[in-house]
């Protein structure tokens, strides 16, 4: 039995004011906001934060976002997608400028989390903006100079929708035990040698790590992808307790 933690009540997560120091255009629909957060207590890869915006008349809206940055970074990076009807995301992706301030609190969540101390091998499966917490894990792995075997299978609609592509390709080129594979579900550029369909059991088997290697598996993306991948991996013999999921729906972002 885990010990009852009676000290939790003292660790209140306070709202902190973050300042946008830099904005990176990741894809036509996706931007990363690099934030200075004075007093940030640090986070582990995979954890998320709550962001709160306040309108001129005092109206407030808050949403959760996974941190894209590694714990070793001095900044907190959020990656946001312009979504139809996405109240907070649309504003963050379209209107925010360097120097703007917003409120943030966290870190939140301690289950969909990976550190090099946890060990591997690591098998990451992401769809669309579901890459974000997985990227924090890979950035952490790189910052820690870890050679833990890792595989990322990343599904995007088109080549231009691959978020962090250059950085991922750069990480894979270091030959330190990381393999990165993409699959493009909607359109593939001429000469494309990667996947060209939705992730399925066959793709997970040929690209991923076998159940016998007992990889720690993290799946993040839209519910349909997460459900399909988690069920396929269970069917391939991966232990359910090693499969962790996080879902990015069309709402709540």
């Amino acid at each position, binding site marked *: 039995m885990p010990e009852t933690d009676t000290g939790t009540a003292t660790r209140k997560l306070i709202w902190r004011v973050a300042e946008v120091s830099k904005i990176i255009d990741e894809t036509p629909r996706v931007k990363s906001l690099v934030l200075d957060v004075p007093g940030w207590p640090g986070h582990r890869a995979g954890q998320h934060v709550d962001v709160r915006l306040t*309108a001129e008349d005092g109206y407030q809206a*808050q949403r959760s976002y996974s941190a894209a940055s590694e714990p070793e970074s001095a900044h907190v990076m959020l990656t946001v997608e312009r979504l139809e009807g996405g109240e907070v995301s649309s504003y963050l992706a379209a209107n925010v400028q360097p120097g703007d301030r917003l409120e943030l609190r966290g870190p939140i969540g301690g289950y969909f989390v990976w550190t090099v101390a946890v060990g591997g091998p690591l098998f990451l499966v992401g769809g669309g903006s579901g890459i974000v917490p997985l990227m924090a894990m890979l950035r952490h792995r790189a910052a820690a100079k870890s050679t833990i075997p890792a595989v990322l299978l990343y599904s995007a609609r088109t080549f231009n929708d691959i978020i962090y592509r250059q950085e991922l390709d750069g990480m894979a080129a270091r030959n330190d035990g990381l393999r990165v594979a993409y699959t493009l579900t909607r359109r593939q550029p001429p000469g494309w040698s990667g996947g060209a369909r939705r992730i399925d059991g066959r793709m997970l088997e040929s690209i991923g790590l076998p159940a016998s290697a007992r990889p720690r598996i993290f799946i993040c993306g839209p519910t349909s992808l997460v459900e399909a991948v988690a*069920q396929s991996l269970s069917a391939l013999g991966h232990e359910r307790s090693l*499969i962790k999921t996080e879902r990015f729906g069309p709402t709540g972002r």
Partner: protein
Amino acid sequence: MTQPPISRGFRGRRSDGPTERLPPGQHLVSDFPVLSAGPTPKTKLEDWRFSLYDGHTALAEWSWADFQSLPQTSLKVDIHCVTSWSKLDTHWQGVTIDTLFEAAGVSEPPTSFTMIHSEGDYTTNIPVEDLIEGKAMVATRYEGDPLEAVHGGPARLLVPHLYFWKSAKWVRRLQFIPDDEPGFWEELGYHMYGDPWREQRYAGD
């Protein structure tokens, strides 16, 4: 408390609905987002059991057929997820915890706290008083249809006045415990009680 920074030009998508029914920090959705920490279990109804325990002593157990023959209750409620979405006027059907206690011959709850256990080791802690007097049920139908597995089917707990992580999916056991202890998310920094109207999202809120 200093004034929060204003986001220039941020208007937000003000809810047209009855905002007095929205707890602080929540926004309305019309779809039904799915959030869970691992693979969705696929339980065969013939293997499904729901049981009541006092500590480690079994008090009662129901098969799916037994459970269906218990008096059924319908509820129309608003639900509030800690990730900030709320959904109004959701319709559920199932067996209230009062009915379960009665069927098990539990006239007086043996303790003041419970641990709720689900398939796949998920747990959440709830005081007994938040489960009785019509406040909670084990739900098996949503909007008239059998509850889908991604939403917790065949049966999930429904405790609509607390944040929705307390309404454990794939629920299998209610255990009376002598003292309040954290469950799965509570152990990971979420609030022990989780009242949306007091915005008790995380430990210390």
